[in-house]
């Protein structure tokens, strides 16, 4: 159908080839996957929202390659465990393990099902409301590893939980594969905010597989940010709004530099009356390829759902495909979408120039605004990084 797709497919490895190319993270044993972080690594983690010295964190989970380096939580209302321990403690977590995603879904889920390099288990007890975020970090330190994790997050009835997840690789690492299975359970009246920041190496492949279930009056908010180059990301988190008035919101900010191939989106199945959803993505291609997907499925009356894919192309070879899908199975639904892809309009630049800004200042003001989707509690390091990315973007113009 289009040239660019084929063009990129040739460069990318198939699922099976990928799995063969990288060796299991567990085989990094004996290398430097334990021990303290170096200064540049700590900086890298900070850019993904992970600050190991910040007192304003409810808990911290850090996994390097396949070993859990830190797993501590200051709140008695929150249970934080490596998933392997939780699995034992709760007899195989049978109500939660592979309940939202099928282990047979694809090569990556099968791989994670076959052999695991840990992951985290987080559970907010009923009614527990945590002020400070909990931080979780999945970090690949060595070249050519495949890191396979399975995470389960449960927000019990009436609880409130805010998680920042930073996924990154060592600053000098180039190649790797990350497979992350995540299952989120938001129970009646609970609220879960999940902010995920990716900062991978240039030749890293990322395959998250995510399922979410939100019960009556529950709220799930996902924020996803990826500003750095990455070889390939492919993911489509799927949320099911199973109870009346459940809400799911997905915000993503994605920058694809030259060489990056990012296929990302969200699917929400609105199963219960009165449930609501919003999927908003802002993507910039500074030379890379982005597919921005959104799929809303309305199965019950009185639902409200909106989808917004906005893409800016800032470099000649950039490609952005916005694929918004609306699917209604009953009559009484309110579903809409908005999608726009293109360059920055000359009219907008001139508007700001007429007030005295030069062309470069005007462009960066517009790009900054474009990327600003108001995510509360973003670390200042990330904001700085965002500024840098904006500056970089223009150099490519």
């Amino acid at each position, binding site marked *: 159908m289009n040239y660019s797709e084929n063009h990129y497919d040739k460069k990318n490895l198939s699922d099976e080839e990928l799995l063969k190319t990288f060796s299991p993270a567990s085989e990094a044993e004996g290398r430097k996957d334990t021990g303290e972080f170096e200064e540049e690594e700590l900086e890298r983690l900070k850019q993904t929202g992970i600050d190991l010295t910040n007192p304003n964190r409810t808990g911290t989970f850090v996994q390097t390659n396949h070993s859990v380096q830190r797993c501590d939580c200051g709140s008695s209302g929150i249970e934080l465990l490596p998933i392997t321990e939780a699995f034992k403690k709760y007899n195989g977590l049978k109500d939660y393990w592979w309940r939202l995603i099928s282990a047979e879904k694809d090569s990556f889920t099968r791989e994670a099902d076959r052999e695991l390099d840990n992951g985290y288990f987080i559970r907010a007890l009923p009614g527990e409301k945590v002020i400070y975020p909990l931080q979780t970090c999945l970090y690949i330190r060595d070249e050519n590893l495949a890191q396979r994790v399975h995470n389960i997050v449960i927000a019990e009835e009436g609880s409130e939980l805010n998680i920042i997840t930073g996924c990154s690789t060592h600053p000098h690492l180039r190649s790797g594969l990350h497979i992350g299975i995540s299952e989120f359970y938001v129970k009646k009246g609970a609220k879960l905010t999940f902010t995920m920041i990716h900062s991978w190496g240039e030749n890293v492949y990322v395959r998250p597989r995510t399922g979410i279930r939100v019960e009556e009056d529950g709220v799930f908010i996902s924020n996803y940010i990826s500003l750095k180059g990455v070889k390939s990301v492919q993911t489509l988190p799927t949320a099911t709004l199973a109870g009346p008035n459940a809400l799911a919101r997905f915000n993503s900010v994605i920058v694809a530099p030259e060489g990056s191939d990012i296929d990302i989106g969200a699917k929400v199945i609105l199963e219960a009356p009165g449930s609501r959803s919003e999927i908003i993505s802002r993507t910039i291609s500074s030379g890379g390829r982005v597919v921005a997907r959104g799929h809303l499925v309305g199965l019950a009356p009185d639902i409200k759902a909106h989808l917004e894919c906005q893409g800016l192309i800032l470099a000649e070879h950039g490609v952005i495909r916005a694929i918004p899908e609306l699917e209604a199975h009953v009559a009484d639904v309110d579903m809409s979408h908005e999608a726009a892809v293109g360059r920055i309009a000359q009219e907008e630049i001139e508007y700001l120039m007429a007030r005295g800004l030069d062309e470069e200042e005007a462009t960066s003001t*517009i790009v900054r605004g474009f990327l600003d*989707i108001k995510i509360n509690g973003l670390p200042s390091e990330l904001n700085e990084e965002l500024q840098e990315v904006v500056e970089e973007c223009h150099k490519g113009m």
Partner: protein
Amino acid sequence: MLKIEDLWVEVQGRDILKGINLRIGTGEIHCLFGKNGSGKTTLLMTLMGFSGYRVKHGHIIFKGEDITHLPINERARLGLGLSFQRPPTLRGVQLKNLLALYSKEIDVGRRLALTYNFEDFLERQVNLGFSGGEIKKSELLQLLAQSPDLLLLDEPESGVDVENLDVICQMIRKLLQKDLPAKRRKSGLIITHTGLILNYVNADRGHVMLNGQIYCHGNPLDIFERIKNYGYEECAKCRLFEQGLKI
């Protein structure tokens, strides 16, 4: 302050302005009347230097400098300021961020918002879902932060309800230093259809534009009254008569 000499402008291959001559002195306020499509907005857009408005002939002299081919932002820095009739939407850009960029004054947005009583407005994304009145307010706030010496206003009162008209006119008076008659250094060129603005701002001169040419200069109130009573056709006849041609 501004001198336009035999200005011919083309938009999308069509001649829109056909030999405009106009002078605006320091501290003077001029009004521009004319039918829709007569070229008034084109004149303002050309003065500001927007792409798509190609000067075929003539000169624009501002503060003694020939700005005919200067980039937009350099004209703005020299002291030209324009309020847009239909400005573009800037997603994610808050009005207060723009105000901060346009002025050296710290917290300029807060001061202005307090003065004109619309603080909640500052957090809004620029022009996103703005009503007609809100667009005018936002444009004038931005101009107040920018503080230009020659103000180009394109129908500042159109689409504004009576309640907002008052505050908008106060802002325009402030921009034009109407309260400092003796020391006024600011000038203005205002396009108006309704003439309402004339009740708030004493304009010094009026001009009628028809078919890309300025047909008539004179006292703005007299001109406006004549247009109200006899329509623009009369201006055309009047001009022809002046030129000693047969009607």
